[in-house]
């Protein structure tokens, strides 16, 4: 069975699709209500909101699919801000001709990831666009959470001397996706790091009190995220190339294509800025979690003027800017 335009016309086929695919997978009393809006219980504390749209080719990749990504992405955006993600909404744009089996698989992956992360999907929407006006599936997720602690994370908390840490190897998501794209074909599977980090981050925040700021370096990679931090704080981020965790296979794939790991997307990574006194303990803490055994301290914050400096093992330095133009395979 394939998605037809009529699945999106708001009539009986739409109703059937919602029932068969979405409600079955998400199973949430708030969704069951079939109202225009879902009614949630009172929320305590300040409320956190985040929205993201997921467009990815291929829809499935080693280590995940667009469904897992759509949950993890928004959950992580909330979590890195210090919030506890509670509720998600999901908006789908389906392309005419999409296999319903494939949709079910992806929706189930969303449901599974949401359960893993402990968040509930409370409202949804489905539209169908004509063949050639979409790319299989696009998903928007919007997340709502709350702030359990009074401590504020933010750019304004960052201080010179703070340490910059990361919870594992970079560029893994980008390489897993590249390797699935037609024509490049790495036949040895590279797994995306795509995963919700909220539980890990909650534990981190509970235990360590000097965490100043977190951000998930997704599109644009760590370089772009670090540059944003530098620009916002007007401090310099001093990064040691040697300390940047990159798995050899990821490095290899990128060297083959002439790409740099600093600009490649991550979907299960968080850059953490914390006081240097706690840095070593945080690294040990991070390394306990699965696939985070190469977490590490990658640099320090220094007074400066909004630059990101990368120091090479051979004595050079490099001024990292934001990503400028989508990374492409190169010959030179």
């Amino acid at each position: 069975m394939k998605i037809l335009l009529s699945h999106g016309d708001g009539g009986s086929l739409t109703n059937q699709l919602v029932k068969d695919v979405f409600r079955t997978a998400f199973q949430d009393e708030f969704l069951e209500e079939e109202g225009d809006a879902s009614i949630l219980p009172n929320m305590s504390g300040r409320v956190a909101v985040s929205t993201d749209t997921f467009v990815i080719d291929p829809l499935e990749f080693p280590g995940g699919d667009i469904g897992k990504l759509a949950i993890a992405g928004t959950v992580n955006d909330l979590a890195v801000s210090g919030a506890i993600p509670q509720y998600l909404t999901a908006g789908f744009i389906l392309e005419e001709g999409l296999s319903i089996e494939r949709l079910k698989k992806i929706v189930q992956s969303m449901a599974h990831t949401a359960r893993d992360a402990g968040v509930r999907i409370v409202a949804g929407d489905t539209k169908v666009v004509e063949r050639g006006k979409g790319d299989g599936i696009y998903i928007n997720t919007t997340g709502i959470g709350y702030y359990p602690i009074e401590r504020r994370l933010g750019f304004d908390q960052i201080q010179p001397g703070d340490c910059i840490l990361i919870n594992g190897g970079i560029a893994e998501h980008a390489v897993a996706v590249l390797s699935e794209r037609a024509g490049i074909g790495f036949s040895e599977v590279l797994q995306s790091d795509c995963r919700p980090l909220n539980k890990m981050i909650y534990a981190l925040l509970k235990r360590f009190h000097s965490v100043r700021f977190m951000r998930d370096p997704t599109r644009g990679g760590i370089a772009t995220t670090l540059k944003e931090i530098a620009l916002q704080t007007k401090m310099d981020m001093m990064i040691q190339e040697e300390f940047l965790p990159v798995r050899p296979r990821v490095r290899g794939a990128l060297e083959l294509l002439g790409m740099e790991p600093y600009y490649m997307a991550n979907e299960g990574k968080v850059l953490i800025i914390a006081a240097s006194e706690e840095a070593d303990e945080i690294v040990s803490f991070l390394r306990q979690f699965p696939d985070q055994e190469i977490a590490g301290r990658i640099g320090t914050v220094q007074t400066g003027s909004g630059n990101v400096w990368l120091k090479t093992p051979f004595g050079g330095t490099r001024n990292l800017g934001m990503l400028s133009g989508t990374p492409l395979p190169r010959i030179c």
Partner: protein
Amino acid sequence: MCLSVPAKIIEIGSSGWQAKVDYLGSHIDVGISLLDRVEVGQYVLVHVGEAIQVVDEELAKESIEIWKGWLDEA
């Protein structure tokens, strides 16, 4: 000018035009028509999806050893 990496042949395709190579654990298919003869286990230099030379492993080891020896000289 020309990005290239030395990758190890791990499998030669049945057509004889292609081989699978490993570079730091990443595997891709590359063309081998520009080389006379290659064997599994050899390293080749890969550029835009083609192997353009067989790496001389002896010389690769020798050269660095020579420099190391020269360091010891002084």
